[in-house]
């Protein structure tokens, strides 16, 4: 009970100190908000790109070529296996004659093909997998390769792999930026708190003389750091909301030109919560460092 009332009063003191200098508070929150909105914004952009990629109709295809000497039983078993496979969305059989005809028609190679004395193409299955990322495709390919009667498997997964690699790179950049701007946040918050502690020198000295513990003196400043971080987080969310509002019509128009209903996805409540929690914690960390360092300077000489 007593503990709770200490916390509550420290929070009240912290809030009063923040609102006593609204301009400083606002500017600090703005600095924190802009810093945090950069990695958070990049994360949202990547997430949107990833979602857009997932919704694209161009799925990777796998071509399964049959061995010329495959027996009828093997062919039937393969057909059944492909149709029932949980990670295959659709499978279409392409007989070798049809493949040759398509080749002749669509690529204008009729003369060349006429001159062949026998069809060099094997029978094949065109498989559309349910999975899209590179690792899963490679695994599926290896699995299909092992089926009896299969001569060769080719995937058209280069595109998917490149996209996955680019997104992975982007995520690394997000982590890197988040770390850097997290450090910046700690520094900004710590510096603001340090300046405030120095203006409260008298109060700290008097409080010590009349029996204040270090914890009592530290507590309001830690709450201050927390509040400042929280406001910074709110500001970041605000910056992203404004950016989203500005981008939304343009994205909608572009999507409409491609006949798509695609819309920008706003951050979820959980993501907003994570940003606020992270900025609050980093604010506390900055305050802690500032307090630990500065209180020693304010210490009366022994």
């Amino acid at each position, binding site marked *: 009970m007593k503990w709770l009332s200490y916390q509550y009063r420290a929070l009240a003191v912290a809030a009063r100190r923040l609102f006593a200098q609204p301009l400083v508070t606002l500017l600090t929150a703005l600095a924190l908000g802009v810093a945090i909105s950069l990695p958070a914004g990049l994360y949202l952009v990547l997430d949107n790109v990833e979602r857009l990629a997932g919704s694209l109709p161009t799925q990777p295809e796998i071509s399964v070529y049959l061995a010329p000497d495959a027996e009828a039983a093997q062919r039937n078993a393969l057909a059944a296996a492909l149709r029932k496979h949980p990670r295959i969305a659709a499978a279409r059989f392409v007989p070798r004659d049809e493949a040759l005809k398509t080749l002749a028609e669509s690529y204008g190679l009729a003369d060349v093909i006429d001159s062949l004395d026998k069809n060099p193409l094997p029978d094949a299955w065109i498989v559309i997998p349910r999975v899209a990322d590179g690792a899963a495709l490679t695994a599926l390919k290896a699995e299909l390769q092992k089926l009896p009667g299969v001569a060769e498997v080719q995937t058209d997964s280069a595109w998917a792999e490149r996209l996955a690699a680019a997104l992975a790179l982007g995520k690394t950049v997000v982590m890197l930026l988040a770390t850097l701007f997290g450090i910046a946040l700690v520094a900004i918050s710590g510096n603001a708190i340090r300046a405030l502690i120095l203006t409260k020198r008298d109060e700290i000295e008097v409080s010590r003389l009349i029996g204040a513990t270090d914890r009592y003196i530290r507590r309001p400043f830690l709450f201050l750091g927390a509040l400042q971080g929280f406001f910074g987080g709110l500001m970041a969310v605000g910056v992203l909301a404004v950016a989203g509002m500005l981008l939304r019509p343009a994205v909608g128009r572009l999507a409409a030109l491609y006949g798509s209903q695609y819309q920008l996805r706003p951050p979820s409540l959980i993501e907003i919560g994570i940003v606020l929690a992270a900025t609050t914690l980093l604010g506390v960390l900055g305050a802690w460092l500032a307090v630990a360092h500065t209180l020693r300077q304010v210490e*009366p000489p022994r």
Partner: protein
Amino acid sequence: MISFSQVSKRYPGGHEALVNASFTIERGELVFLTGHSGAGKSTLLKLIAAIERPTSGVVSVNGQNVGRLPRRAVPYLRRNIGLVFQDHKLLFDRNVIENVLLPLDIAGSDRRESFRRARAVLDKVGLLNREKSHPLSLSGGEQQRLCIARALVGRPALLLADEPTGNLDAGYAADIMAMFRDFHRVGTTLVISTHDDRAIAALGGRVLHLDHGHIVSGAAS
């Protein structure tokens, strides 16, 4: 209540503020510290409140060796000591009653009870009608009374006052000293450093006289 045993305090740079001081002060006693400025009066008071630590010797308050007190225990010692400063050390970013509430807030007292006690003590020093005023709007004597109210609100058994009337004219000084006499009558132990001979004569009590860090008289009660 307080005992000094061969206590010396040497400041960095070699200045010896207190040399081989030995004396005891009983519970409920009223003791004046006298001597020229720089004689070691402030140092002696600071040693009692653990604001300074002795270079050698033992300072004991309520049976606790104050000089050896771990850092984290010092605040709890100070909560039992009322401190009155010559320069008041008031906080000018809050009003009169908030200054008095500070020690109770630090001790984590119940808020409503704190207000009740703060008003009672402001009444005692005659500042109840100024509770919402700003400390800067108070006269020097009123500021000193406010400082005393803050020192007393925690009901300390021991009150240390460092030249409490040093900056005040005679009328205010007599007021303050009369107040100290009342506290002495209700059993508070008081140690007051002063130049004010009239006050000493009026209040009685033991006089501990210091000269260049040496106790020259009053060590034995």
